């Protein structure tokens, strides 16, 4: 590693557009847990997190422009929009700043992207249901926030899954805005007009709300694909213990922010990093439920934090593919 540049003077900023749910809080927590020691050990000089007050691309663009002025060497960004920050990101690149986007990635070519295959995530939900319910049936789809990239991607994946497994049909679709109470309300509203539902495909953060609504309506509990929230998994565990309920839970781990941190550090250190990296999403199965639940703080989200070595492994793998 002789060619590596010293990054102990480098300052890295996290640009975050939203802090209003448990996933984002876990993400910020992971960032603090991982970057704190890194700064103490002198690996980097600073790793500051910034959150905008409203979940809006324009505000985040301004935030990134401020980071340029503050003279950060790298900006790690979870973007409100894949395209609307491109102007600001380009300005950062032009100022010689390394920009690494993750989770909510940006399309500006000068930035790095740590992407989750949301499309595949949606498809796998249907695939799992097909394995459980070969004869198929009616599904209820709970979408996220309309007009947001991730919502569109997962939904597209789910619909691709339905094409692959035509025994399923989407009987109803509601927007739950990735919030339990909104999802609960939307599901409660559409349920009365729906035929029997065998499965619920979700985007994470809304499974528990769906379960509550279905329970309140006195219907049989379908297979609800969950999204790694602790309360969902706890509910799953209880259901399993009571009636042998089986399902699957998948979502992106909030700790991916720490991966992005290390990637940014590696780029600053002079490592050749491909522009596109992929992280797997985190899947919890019947077998891993108890273990995952035990490791997840009450009210939080199942998480994985990345170390420098993990990051190097991810980079190496991507380099291999080049």
């Amino acid at each position: 590693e002789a060619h590596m540049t010293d990054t102990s003077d480098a300052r890295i900023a996290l640009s975050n557009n939203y802090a209003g749910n448990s996933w984002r809080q876990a993400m910020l927590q992971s960032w603090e847990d991982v970057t704190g020691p890194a700064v103490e050990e002198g690996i980097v000089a600073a790793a500051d997190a910034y959150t905008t007050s409203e979940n809006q691309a324009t505000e985040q663009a301004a935030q990134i422009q401020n980071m340029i002025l503050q003279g950060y060497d790298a900006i790690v960004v979870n973007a409100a929009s894949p395209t609307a920050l491109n102007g600001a990101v380009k300005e950062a690149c032009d100022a010689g700043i390394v920009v690494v986007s993750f989770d909510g990635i940006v399309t500006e070519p000068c930035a790095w992207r740590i992407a989750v295959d949301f499309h595949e995530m949606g498809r796998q939900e249907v695939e799992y249901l097909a394995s459980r319910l070969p004869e198929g049936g009616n599904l209820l789809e709970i979408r996220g926030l309309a007009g947001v990239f991730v919502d569109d991607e997962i939904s597209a994946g789910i619909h691709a899954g339905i094409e692959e497994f035509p025994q399923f049909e989407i009987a109803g679709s509601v927007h739950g805005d990735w919030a339990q109470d909104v999802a609960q309300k939307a599901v409660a509203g559409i349920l009365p007009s729906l035929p029997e539902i065998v499965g619920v495909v979700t985007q994470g953060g809304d499974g528990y709300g769906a379960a509550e609504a279905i329970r309140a309506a006195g219907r049989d509990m379908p297979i609800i694909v969950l999204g790694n929230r602790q309360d969902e998994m706890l509910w799953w565990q209880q259901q399993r213990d009571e009636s042998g309920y089986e399902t699957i839970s998948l979502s992106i781990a909030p700790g991916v922010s720490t991966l992005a941190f290390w990637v940014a550090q590696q780029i600053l250190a002079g490592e050749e990093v491909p522009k596109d990296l992929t992280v797997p999403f985190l899947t919890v199965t019947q077998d891993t439920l108890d273990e995952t639940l035990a490791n997840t703080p009450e009210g939080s989200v199942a998480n994985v934090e990345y170390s420098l070595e993990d990051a190097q492994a991810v980079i190496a793998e991507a380099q291999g593919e080049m």
Partner: protein
Amino acid sequence: MSALIARPWIWSWLAAALAFALTVSLTGGRGAGELAYAALSFGAFAAIVGMGQMLVITLGPGNVDLSIPATMTLAGTLALKAMGSDPGTAAMGLAIALAVGLGVGLANFALIYLLRLPPIIATLAASLIYQSLAIWSNRGLRIKPPEGLADFSTGRTLAVPNVAWVGLAIAVVVWVVLERSTWGRWLMATGQNMRAARLAGVPVQRVRFATYLAVAVLAGLTGYLLASFSGGAALNMGQEYLLMSIAVVVIGGSSIAGGYSNVPGVWGAALFMFLVVSMLNSYGAPAGLRLVLTGTIIIGIVIAASTRRVRT
């Protein structure tokens, strides 16, 4: 009948009934009970915060509370954190939620009265601080409500959801206060012309103070109930009640210019706001179309209600 049509609140109820009928007709009548039950449950939350917002809007132009969502979140978060799912702590949680409401109301009014900030800006700015407080206090962790409380908030009595009973009781109280009490008259007088009201002997600042306290306490209560109802507080749980609380007031037929409010209309509008989304979801309308139709229907109701009022 014509006297009934002249009442501005009738339109929100008619619209709600129509949305209900259209949804149920999709399944040939099956699920009507379920839908009504759901509408009452979810309508209750909108109705309770809506009634608070109505009181504030009645205070006259420029009066509105934009901190309702943040207050709900803060009250829900702190109450559930304090209860920590322990049985027998429901009353303490309620007390905490109400205390949060009181504190928020005090703070809001202090900004409005002492610093002379326009309420719209004062409550908006303060709500950001409340949100920070909620984040800081438990970082958005979802803690389950105690079992008894969860059962109460999701349960029913005489086939009507318990939260709807709470909402109805509050509606009755608010109606009596507005229509039959000195305090209600004072509120409406203040809303029409604060200066004239003051000169007529109305203690206008006391009225304004009490109103801003009332809206915050109702928001706190709603936060507590909603968090218990949906299995825990979330940082974004109040978000949709910002526009919702204003929408139910104006669809319900209260005068947005102040001085005239309408309690039954708030409930009608709360039911309508739930049912219209359910209806459009049931018909499979995509998000864009759903929004366009919701907006069009809202404007339609307002036009219907106001042209009738002009004619009579």
